């Protein structure tokens, strides 16, 4: 929970950024012993210096993006355990931290399998459900908004989400479509409209299912929260993440599907643009709200359809960038850092990113050429990523070491650099992971 100081309105964006980072850095932790506390301090101060782009003793290595599955899989954890058996993750995670002494805490994303079962979640398949036990989750694309529904979305994105999208995405939530239009509940008799669905058996049944699913979720969160606290207690600081997307990707990934949205650029460009614009205020409010609630100083973007391969630079600058930039600028004003996980390559988009104010971004690259990244972005932003998943999976330890050494050397004189993978992988070896983590310690 982040509480704004009294003089918030007089503070500059960078002062607000510092206030959020201070709150994160000073959050109370119960340590197992004084050594753990001292180690935590060293780690979190180094990380803070990196986030402030100030001089520090060495870069850090963050295995989260690449190795988070491997670090539990190496102890026999299966894909299905990440979805159903969250208590099985605790020991492997603690063992990993004790054995490898990472620079930051490495978590595993927990998926609420039991809640999904109860709600008949359609957007994914998962291990132990329709996928074999060794797999975690797999997105299934669908058209959750039909082309002729753009107008509904543009008129009221929140109502669309509540009454059209959620009933399709979760089978058990179909009765949400019965909800009234809230902004017209005003006069005495409108209470009838407001409550009517709540009196109907299918709606009531849905509410019971939701409560049951909520109870299951609390169990999962309890286990995960406890594991996180234990990792912190042993000396490893974590930076929470709020996962978000760009307006174009919410529309493309979730509502229209990849092919759908790419065709919409030709078939209904004006509606697509209007829908992206309708998203902006909704997203700003919701991201600021979740950063306040969680206390995490960053919004973590997974970036999909703006990559080099997906569209021309002109299309990017027309459809993808403007509304995204508006959101990021608003977050910057609020002191929130945009952490960009840039899937695929962004070789042509670096100049766009460079338009953002200093220290507003962390840029995490997958396959983008890192030479130009160094040139164009490394004085302004925190840079990370690019160690290939293929190398971690199928390369030798020497190859991993050489690749990481090169990256560390390339960014030697950059103000803020974090060594990280470009993409996750299931398989590697402890030796390769150690070679990756040691590359920053030379």
């Amino acid at each position, binding site marked *: 929970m982040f509480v704004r100081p009294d003089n918030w309105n007089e503070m500059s964006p960078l002062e607000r950024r510092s206030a959020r980072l201070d709150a994160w850095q000073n959050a109370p932790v119960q340590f197992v012993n004084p050594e753990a506390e001292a180690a935590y301090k060293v780690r979190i101060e180094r990380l803070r210096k990196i986030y402030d782009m100030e001089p520090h003793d060495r870069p850090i290595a963050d295995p989260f993006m690449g190795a988070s599955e491997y670090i539990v899989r190496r102890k026999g954890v299966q894909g299905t355990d990440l979805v159903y058996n969250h208590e099985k993750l605790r020991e492997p995670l603690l063992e990993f931290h004790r054995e490898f002494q990472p620079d930051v805490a490495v978590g595993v994303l927990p998926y609420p399998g039991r809640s999904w079962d109860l709600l008949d979640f359609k957007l994914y398949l998962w291990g132990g459900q329709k996928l074999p036990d060794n*797999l975690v989750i*797999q997105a*299934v694309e669908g058209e959750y908004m039909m082309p002729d529904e753009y107008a509904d979305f543009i008129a009221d994105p929140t109502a669309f989400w509540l009454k059209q999208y959620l009933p399709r995405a979760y089978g058990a939530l179909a009765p949400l479509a019965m909800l009234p239009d809230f902004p017209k509940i005003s006069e005495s008799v409108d209470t009838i409209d407001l409550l009517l669905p709540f009196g109907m058996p299918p709606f009531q049944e849905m509410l019971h299912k939701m409560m049951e699913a909520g109870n299951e979720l609390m169990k999962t969160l309890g286990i995960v929260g406890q594991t996180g606290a234990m990792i912190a207690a042993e000396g490893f600081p974590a930076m929470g993440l709020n996962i978000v997307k760009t307006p174009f990707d919410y529309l493309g990934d979730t509502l229209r599907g*990849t*092919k759908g949205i*790419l*065709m919409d*650029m*030709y*078939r209904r460009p004006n509606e697509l643009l209007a829908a992206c614009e309708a998203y902006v205020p909704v997203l700003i409010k919701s991201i600021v709200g979740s950063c306040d609630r969680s206390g995490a100083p960053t919004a973590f973007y997974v970036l999909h359809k703006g990559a080099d*391969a*997906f*569209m*021309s630079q002109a*299309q990017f600058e027309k459809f993808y960038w403007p509304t995204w930039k508006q959101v990021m600028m608003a977050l910057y004003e609020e002191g929130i850092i945009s952490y960009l996980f840039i899937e*695929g390559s962004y070789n042509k988009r670096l100049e766009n990113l460079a338009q953002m104010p200093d220290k507003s971004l962390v840029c995490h690259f997958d396959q983008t050429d890192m030479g130009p990244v160094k040139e164009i972005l490394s004085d302004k932003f925190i840079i990370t990523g690019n160690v*290939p*998943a*293929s*190398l971690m*999976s*199928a*390369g030798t330890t020497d*190859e991993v070491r050489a690749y990481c050494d090169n990256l560390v050397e390339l960014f030697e004189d950059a103000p803020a650099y974090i060594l990280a993978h470009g*993409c*996750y*992988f*299931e*398989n590697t070896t402890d030796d390769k992971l150690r070679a990756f983590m040691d590359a920053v310690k030379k």
Partner: protein
Amino acid sequence: MSQELIDAITEMREEDVVAITNQLLDEGVAPTDILMACKQAMDVIGKRFEEGDAFIPELILAGEMMTSVTDILKPRMAEESTSDKLGKIVIGTVQGDIHDIAKDIVAFMLDLNGFDVTDLGVDVPPEKFVETVQDTGATIVGLSGFLTLAFDPMKDTVAAFKAAGLDDVKIMIGGGQIDENIRQYTGANAYGRDAMAAVDLAKSWV
């Protein structure tokens, strides 16, 4: 008139394409001539893609426009002969993986460059690749995959060809995280970074 069709396609005017095709047929233009015009238009779009001036949206839309034209022409045409093709290729996304956008683009570019392409779709098991090569007599196979979990199915597919005694079939792989490391790991003949690389590799093998 067929220049108008070519322009409509290369300018991505989807609705005009259908109208012009119908108009050409009404005027008595032979379906094969209309197809020739489409082919010319596709060549233009393919060139643009190669030169970095067209991207996935244009290729998907071009594919859709081609489908609507051939749907109109099909009832009026005899089977297309494949005798003048450069060679036969079987392509698909490997088992466990459903990423098909890139695979479709590779198939499109191979087709455009004169290959007879059999597209097996997504989540294709190794046996299916082998059977299809046996049935079609294809000499080249393209495996696409985006997941790290696709590395092993790719390896298994390469092994399945060896096991079936089809050692002469050339296998190329590509997609997201695929690179030279994975080529070595899977034992494929080559890896291609993009659809142009797929075309170059295929041409070098026929």
